[in-house]
């Protein structure tokens, strides 16, 4: 029996190499998917609210994207980087005032009711626009959704809205929830937020706090023959070191979102039966950013910000903190973005002498103890890497005579300290780039954002030229002209440094060889997994 398994594995590995050599964009095995089986995987957080229409975040998507579907999903080879889900086609009007979605026929909610355009209209107007963390910006001008028939939804905008933005927003922002469940009572308090009902390939089974989430197969799913899996179990393993041992012990078959620490990957890649996959997160790029409080008079001086940028050794950060699983950043758009990225921006190479000279010029001379001034540095606690970069930044700043005092907080206290109380001088944050600068990137530098909005400009930065550029880009309909404006945006941000972009990284999955169709789209970990399967 074991001999059979080994020869089969060898054969599979061979076919995988063949696949790789043909430069296929996917990493799937050349096998017809098998039906059945239970996929057990590691989950490191336990979101309470599982409604992705309200909380558009990766922690929620990781679980609920299998239950609640969006209008479209990101795709490696689809047109405009999209693949249809609940919508089969989408078209923007030339004047930017409307977008027409044709919806999929024969789709049923998990409770048996039919899915119609009324559900899309309800989700967009009642949830995405008023309640969703990201939808508030993107859908701010959405005035109405017309539903001429059950399978057509026409989004009407009060002001011209770029179709490119709406398209780019579809994978993360367009989760459709059932109107008949949500129209009674307050949406935020609806019990379906904790036990979601959707159209996806899996139904919500149960949740045991501190133990697991269980999703079961939706036998009525619209996809032909899909889903393949009978069950998905999210085993709660909050301790990052335990995911690796659980994989080795065959207790779990998959650890996504870098649940296995980067330092362990080298070792675990040599364990037979396990594979390390760095694909499938291209649409979920995290950015390592130094957030700056411009209310501090020293930091309001461009020379000081330039000095800090020159003090950071980005290559060291990528090599040591991220162990090579990252890329150095040049500006607010990550290098792996196919639409907007430009390398033509001012750059800041590591140059301690120049940094010291800039600080001297700015009038902050070194005191008797070698320090120029003291700063409060708040590294975000969400990732090991953000904390480690905080430790590194403190040392890098010490080299140019800035004494940074670290302040550690838990997640809730960090968000309050930085985004509500503004009780920081420098902070290390991991904002996410979501395929379009207008979704969650421009708000990092734009002025006039009310206090308390997490992951936005709460550093008191105000630059009228940049604000005007952002406003202009948000109403430019022509895709090429809009893209050029965002290239100019990157240039201006890199020149004026409202924040300092240090590195860009994504996640790593570790899975057993038996898990098939992994990483076959750019948001794989947060996609619906209808085609994921297990071999015996």
């Amino acid at each position, binding site marked *: 029996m074991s001999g059979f398994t080994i020869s089969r594995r060898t054969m599979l590995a061979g076919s995988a190499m063949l696949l790789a050599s043909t430069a296929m964009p996917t990493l799937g095995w050349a096998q017809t998917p098998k039906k059945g089986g239970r996929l057990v995987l590691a989950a490191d957080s336990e979101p309470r609210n599982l409604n992705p229409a309200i909380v558009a975040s990766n922690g929620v998507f990781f679980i609920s994207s299998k239950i609640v579907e969006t209008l479209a999903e990101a795709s490696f080879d689809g047109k405009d980087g999209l693949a249809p889900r609940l919508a089969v086609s989408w078209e923007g009007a030339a004047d930017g005032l409307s977008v027409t979605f044709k919806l999929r026929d024969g789709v049923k909610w998990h409770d048996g009711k039919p899915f119609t355009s009324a559900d899309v209209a309800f989700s967009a107007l009642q949830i995405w626009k008023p309640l969703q963390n990201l939808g508030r910006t993107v859908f701010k001008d959405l005035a109405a959704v017309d539903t001429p028939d059950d399978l057509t939804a026409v989004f009407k905008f009060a002001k011209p809205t770029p179709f490119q933005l709406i398209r780019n927003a579809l994978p993360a922002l367009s989760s459709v929830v059932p109107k008949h469940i949500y129209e009674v009572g307050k949406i935020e308090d609806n019990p379906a937020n904790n036990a979601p009902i959707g159209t996806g390939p899996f139904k919500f089974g149960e949740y045991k706090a501190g133990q697991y989430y269980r999703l079961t197969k939706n036998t009525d799913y619209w996809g032909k023959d899909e889903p393949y899996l009978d069950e998905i179990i999210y085993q709660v393993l909050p301790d990052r*070191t335990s995911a690796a041992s659980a994989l080795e012990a065959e207790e779990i078959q998959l650890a996504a979102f870098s649940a296995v*620490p980067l*330092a*362990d990957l080298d070792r675990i890649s040599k364990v037979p039966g396990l594979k390390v996959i760095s694909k499938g997160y291209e649409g979920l790029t995290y950015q390592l950013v130094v957030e700056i409080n411009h209310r501090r008079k020293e930091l309001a001086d461009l020379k000081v910000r330039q000095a800090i940028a020159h003090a950071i050794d980005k290559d060291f950060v990528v090599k*040591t903190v991220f162990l090579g699983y990252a890329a150095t950043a040049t500006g607010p758009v990550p290098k792996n973005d196919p639409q907007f990225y430009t390398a033509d921006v001012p750059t800041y190479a590591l140059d301690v002498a120049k940094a010291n000279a800039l600080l001297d010029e700015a009038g902050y001379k070194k005191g008797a103890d070698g320090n120029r001034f003291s700063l409060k540095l708040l590294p975000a606690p969400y990732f*090991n890497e953000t904390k*480690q970069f905080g*430790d590194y930044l403190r040392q890098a700043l010490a080299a140019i005579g800035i004494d940074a*005092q670290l*302040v550690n907080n838990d997640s809730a206290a960090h968000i309050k300290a930085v985004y509500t109380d503004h009780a920081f001088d420098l902070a290390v944050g991991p904002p996410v780039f979501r395929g379009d600068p207008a979704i969650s990137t421009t708000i990092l530098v734009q002025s006039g954002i009310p206090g308390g909005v997490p992951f936005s400009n709460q550093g008191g930065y105000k630059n009228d030229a940049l604000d005007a550029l952002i406003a202009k880009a948000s109403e430019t309909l022509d895709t090429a002209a809009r893209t050029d404006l965002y290239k100019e945006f990157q240039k201006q941000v890199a020149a004026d440094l409202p924040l300092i972009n240090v590195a860009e990284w994504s996640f790593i999955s570790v899975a057993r060889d038996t898990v098939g169709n992994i990483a076959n789209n750019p948001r794989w970990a947060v996609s619906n997994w209808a085609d994921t399967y297990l071999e015996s």
Partner: protein
Amino acid sequence: MSPVRRFLSTPEAVAGTILLTALIAMALSASLLFPGDPQAIAGPALLPPFQDWSLPLGTDRLGRDVLAELFHGARTSLAVGLAAAAAALAVGSVVGTLAGFAGGLVDEVLMRITDAFQTVPSFLLALAFVSVVGPSLGIVVIAIALGTWTGPARVARAEVLSIRERDYVASARAIGMHPLAIAFREVLPNALPPVLAMSSVIVAAAILTEAALSFLGLGDPNRVTWGGMIAEGRAVLRTAPFLSIVPGIALVLTVLGVYLAGEGIVETTAVRRGLS
């Protein structure tokens, strides 16, 4: 036999003294042997021990010198341990003396407060306190003292209850001394020895609590602590176990040293009392 020689005649006391002396020497010499910031990046990351003799114990994930961190961490551990124990003993003996000497309602109130503190596990109390107020060295000391003063308070009260009936206390009353003066000048000094005997246990517990708080990320992030080092090393436990093992051993030896030395002192005093 002089007390010192008697103290040194027990093997555990000798072992404890050697360990403690080494620890104190480490703490005192940290700035001389490793001047500058121990958290400065000194070499390539994750260098194993005994490879490069300028970095004998290797480096951590950012390339910081583990030996320098170990020496500076000894300072933090010792400082927090001693300060927290001193605070706990001071508060505990004052509360215990007042309760025991005053009796009645004051005794009731103070002892019920002590009970209240004792019902909450001391580590949880420290954890809650630090997460509310925010981590810094002083706060960590207060947080640890908060959970450990009750032991000394109870012991002090029990001692005071027996001492206050003695003749010399009655005579002090008779000559019209102020009750507070009697309590703190006459009674407390005589009630102290058994309270002080608890100090070694308290110091050891305080060092461990500090390490546990740092391990959970609630220590002062601007200082090197052994608990913090262990926590840092945990992420690479399988690839670089020395990062957790080295400070772990240091922690074990320190706690053992404090405890053994304390045992030695208790034994010595017990013998002297028994002989007299």
